[in-house]
């Protein structure tokens, strides 16, 4: 698809959120994500980065501020087929759930279907396309619980791809996945972003990896503390290192 890098896909304005109504997990966050972006939302545990992602998906409602998806307020948003979501699975995944890879990916088509509509030839083609994109078509009849963590992640990406979405949100997608599998996984994300033009919004605590993968880094620690390129991020963290601030040591990588 033609990618217009100036077009806003997500606009978060002055967003504050609190689970208990007392302490804000997020405070006055403003952030715009453009079409074709590949953005990594980073921050330590408990920094509110997953909360920010959930607000952008309408899974939780902020006390203050607004979220717009494709220029429409999230409370009135209807075009959910434009959005793919890969939840954090490694933590709460029932490995005994009786469901095949094909059935999981077919779910991606359920949201946009009318209740009485049957599964069509087009749906089956969409599932085959998505499974081929992630290289999992040959495993379509296996139980999801019988796959490795990395393969399961690919299946969930395939599910997100079935509606040919414009943006995919991923929450800590490589938790519990070994390093070599991660390389393949990030190569797949690069392909989706560069070749198909899908906007990617990725939440991760792996800052070092993010600086090598994404186009923009958004640092969240209750508020948005930075929204810069990986190069700027690395330069800044080196500076603050010299200044003696408490910053996690980050090895230098060239973005290629």
């Amino acid at each position, binding site marked *: 698809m033609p990618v217009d890098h100036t077009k806003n896909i997500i606009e978060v304005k002055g967003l504050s959120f609190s689970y208990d109504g007392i302490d804000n997990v997020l405070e006055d966050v403003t952030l715009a994500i453009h079409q074709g972006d590949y953005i990594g939302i980073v921050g330590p545990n408990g920094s509110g980065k997953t909360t920010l992602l959930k607000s952008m998906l309408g899974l939780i409602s902020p006390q203050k501020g607004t979220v717009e998806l494709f220029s429409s307020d999230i409370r009135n948003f209807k075009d*959910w*087929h434009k959005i793919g979501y890969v939840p954090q699975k490694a933590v709460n995944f029932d490995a*005994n759930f*009786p*469901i095949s890879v094909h*059935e999981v990916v077919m*779910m*991606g088509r*359920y*949201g946009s279907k009318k209740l009485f509509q049957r599964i069509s030839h087009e749906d089956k083609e969409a599932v085959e396309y998505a499974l081929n994109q992630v290289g999992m078509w040959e495993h379509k009849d296996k139980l999801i619980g019988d796959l490795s963590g990395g393969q399961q992640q690919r299946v969930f990406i395939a599910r997100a791809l079935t509606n040919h979405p414009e943006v995919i949100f991923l929450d800590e997608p490589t938790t519990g996945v070994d390093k070599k599998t991660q390389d393949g996984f990030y190569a797949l994300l690069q392909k989706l972003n560069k070749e198909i033009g899908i906007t990617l919004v990725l939440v991760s605590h792996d800052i070092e990896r993010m600086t090598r993968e994404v186009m923009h880094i958004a640092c969240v620690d209750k508020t948005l503390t930075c929204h810069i390129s990986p190069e700027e991020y690395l330069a800044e963290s080196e500076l603050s290192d010299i200044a003696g601030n408490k910053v996690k040591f980050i090895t230098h990588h060239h973005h290629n």
Partner: protein
Amino acid sequence: MFENIFQYAFIVRGLEAGILVAIIAPAIGIFLVLRRYSLIADTLAHVSLAGIAIGIFFGINPVLTALATAVAASLGVEKLRVSKKVYGESALALFLSGSLALAVVILSLGHGLNSSLFSYLFGSIVTVTASDVRIISILAVIVISILAVFYKPLVYVTFDEEAAKVSGISTRLINTILIILAAMTVSLAIPIVGVLLISALIVIPVITALQFRKSFIHTIIYAEIISLLSVVSGIFASFYFNLSTGGTIVLVMLAIFSSVFLLKNIRGTVRY
């Protein structure tokens, strides 16, 4: 040597009602079991007993009053669960014991603590009336139709509630539909297995089918076969050996579960 079982009208009625219950219970059960809602069936069954007591007291068909109370209570349970003001399982305990208390008090008011209560507790195909069969058939058609219409979003919400929500599915609506279907299933199963044994019909065929580790649709098919087999053979066995129908059905189910479980797990230890 065996007399012809079909010469008795009550047996035919019992088989008709039993087969309908056997088809519906695991179809709802798979969603309840996988969502860790198994105990809701048991709770709604106890609630139904209060409904039955009301029915006996006012001379209305107890299946209908059981249905009404179970559906009302199911909405209450779901509301309490979503509000998070009461822990999920405490909400169940509240409804379970509360409705049992209500049932006993109403029954003692109407001097109904007699043998008909016993048949509602443990089920009895002898007491299944023609009007019961009619009500059960209508309920069964309604449950199956709703299930067919909402099958896809139900599967999605059961597997991954968050992703289902992001895909545009109203998860609150789907959860409410599931619990109402559970209430309907429970009340239509009462005449056959009784209040105390219903959750076995909803849960055991499903957990047996789960041992085969198949896809979702195959697991449903396996559970249906196990359920039908158990209910029909249980009714026959209870007739020829003069045993409690509900109890016999549940024991057949348990026997199938135990065999499958042992077989699968012995094989499992050899393979791994």
